[in-house]
């Protein structure tokens, strides 16, 4: 029982943490709430699936999917430029982009007859037992890749010159500009990195899920809960919140199976309570909104 909670919670926690990291990065540099973020995750999984169905080897399919998704996000980013000053319009626009991606996938799905677009083939077959729980190798591989990316992202942001430039821009745009950081370039690269991270997560984790074009909305809600819970713009906060929320979810599903369908409601309820006590989330104090 607890081993189950641990296994499921760990994977979901890692995925949420990765998505939350990308989302936080995007928010803290570009200062926009990009509701289409999980849609990039979904589209990457679908492109990967499509490419493997076309007969491409997995590694090539993964590369094509990640590159295409990043390119797509950079194009859509252009659309946001004229409305940047109005957060409401940005929200509507990014939501619309998400829905457009979802409907495009549905459209392709419907027009290609006879192909089953839900199960992504695993990269490696087989399973083993850890703590008495059956764990597939695919799960271990996904977990490993996600952890590696998380660590790499953390190293990149804290240790490299460019990562420091990104963090500087997120803290103070003007001063960052004064010391010679090209803010526009940083924004573009951050978009690329953030969406790339989501795309990698989509590709690596997709074999563990049943794919549905609308699943991005469900994940968006959880992702928002994670990010807000941890404090918008705080990487550390979202990491911690991601695992808290993932373990709560897994705990509700396994310990109280009769109310398993309430799991997102329970997460939302906890989030509301936390926000009432700490209006800026767990670690959100450092980001000031303007």
């Amino acid at each position, binding site marked *: 029982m607890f081993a189950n909670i641990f296994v499921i919670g760990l994977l979901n926690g890692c995925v949420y943490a990765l998505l939350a990291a990308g989302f936080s990065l995007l928010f803290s540099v570009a200062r926009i709430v990009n509701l289409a973020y999980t849609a990039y995750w979904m589209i990457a999984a679908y492109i990967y699936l499509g490419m493997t169905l076309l007969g491409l080897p997995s590694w090539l399919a993964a590369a094509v999917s990640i590159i295409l998704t990043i390119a797509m996000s950079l194009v859509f980013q252009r659309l946001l430029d004229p409305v940047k000053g109005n*957060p409401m*319009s940005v929200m509507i626009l990014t939501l619309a982009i998400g829905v457009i991606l979802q409907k495009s996938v549905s459209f392709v799905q419907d027009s290609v007859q006879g192909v089953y677009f839900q199960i992504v083939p695993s990269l490696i077959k087989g399973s083993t037992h850890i703590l008495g729980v059956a764990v597939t190798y695919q799960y271990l591989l996904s977990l490993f890749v996600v952890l590696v990316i998380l660590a790499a992202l953390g190293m990149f942001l804290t240790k490299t010159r460019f990562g420091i430039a990104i963090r500087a821009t997120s803290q103070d745009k003007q001063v960052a500009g004064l010391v010679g950081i090209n803010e526009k370039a940083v924004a573009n690269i951050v978009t690329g990195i953030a969406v790339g991270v989501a795309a990698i997560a989509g590709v690596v984790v997709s074999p563990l899920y049943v794919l549905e074009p609308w699943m991005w909305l469900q994940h968006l*809600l959880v992702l928002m809960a994670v990010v807000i819970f941890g404090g918008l713009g705080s990487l550390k906060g979202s990491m911690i919140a991601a695992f808290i929320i993932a373990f709560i979810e897994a705990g509700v599903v396994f310990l109280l199976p009769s109310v398993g369908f309430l799991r997102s*409601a329970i997460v*939302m309820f906890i989030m509301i309570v936390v926000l009432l006590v700490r*209006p800026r989330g767990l670690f959100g104090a450092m980001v000031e909104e303007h």
Partner: protein
Amino acid sequence: MRIGNITDYLKKEIFPVPTRVMAFVGLAALVAFPLIMDQPHILRLMIMIFIFSIFAASWDLISAYTGQVVLGHALFFGVSAYTCAMLNTHFNMSPVMTIPIGAVVAVAAGLIAGFPALRLKGIYLGLTTMAMPVVLVAVIEYMRSYTGGEQGIIGIEQLATSRVHFYYIALLLMVVSIAVLMKITRSKIGLIFQAIRDDEIAARASGVNTTYYKLLSFSLSGLFAGLAGGLYAHFMRVIGPSVFEFSFSFEPIIWTIFGGGASIVGPVIGVFILLPVVEMLHVHLGDNATLIYYLILVIVVVFAPGGVLRLINRYTEKVCPECMTVNAFPRRQCRVCSAKLSAVNGE
């Protein structure tokens, strides 16, 4: 005397401004509409437009006017719709009773939702309100025996016996609601709402009790959203947890942004344009309609950020820089104070 007053008002305030003439003609056309068109599905669409106009305008009040980002507006709509449905099916109360009660319950929901607004701002508030309908759906599914769970509640009484009858009730309620909302937003209260949106600290420093006015805005918004929800329940006669869905919260935002926020009229224009467009797209394109709909939305938001209303106003009106009176576009002098009007609007 009264007739004279009305013609005087028409001559002085309605006819000199093109957009007001359009609104006047449009309203007259709506009143006459059932006389020339009696196809049930068209009337159904019109009734939906009226109901959703009230819903969209109520979102405009709380978010575009008062600046309290509400991303879960379906909460008020759904709470009222469910209250009406439950009172009607369990206690056999007539719709005349249930709709006002539903609206009052929505006001209570507005106050409860407004409570976090006192501490939270911007996207944090938006997310909290977005989470509220999700929690409520869980409660509804949990209390299956009263709420019908996923199946929802069926067999709600129709408010009016015929569709034309319902059409006029909905039209009347929409016109009254929009008029009341416009009156509120153009009064001192509306000014305070905008002050809170633009700079809350400055508003408080000027002696405004921001707590009171924020809660007032939430309850007013809840009231009208609740009215719309009650009408919806008694029109559809079936209500399910889908009224709390994500998309239901985002539709009023889309209508408002499309039509032009912070104007009350904008969301109404948005509903009047977008709802028939969606209906038409669905008839002709089936499932791909949503794709086209959102593409249109993206194009409008990118190329007309102020919404359709601002676009129309820009080419048909000039605001006098001296007395803020609205003038028709060809005029060179203000019709009230004779001040000179610039050639291009807003310069």
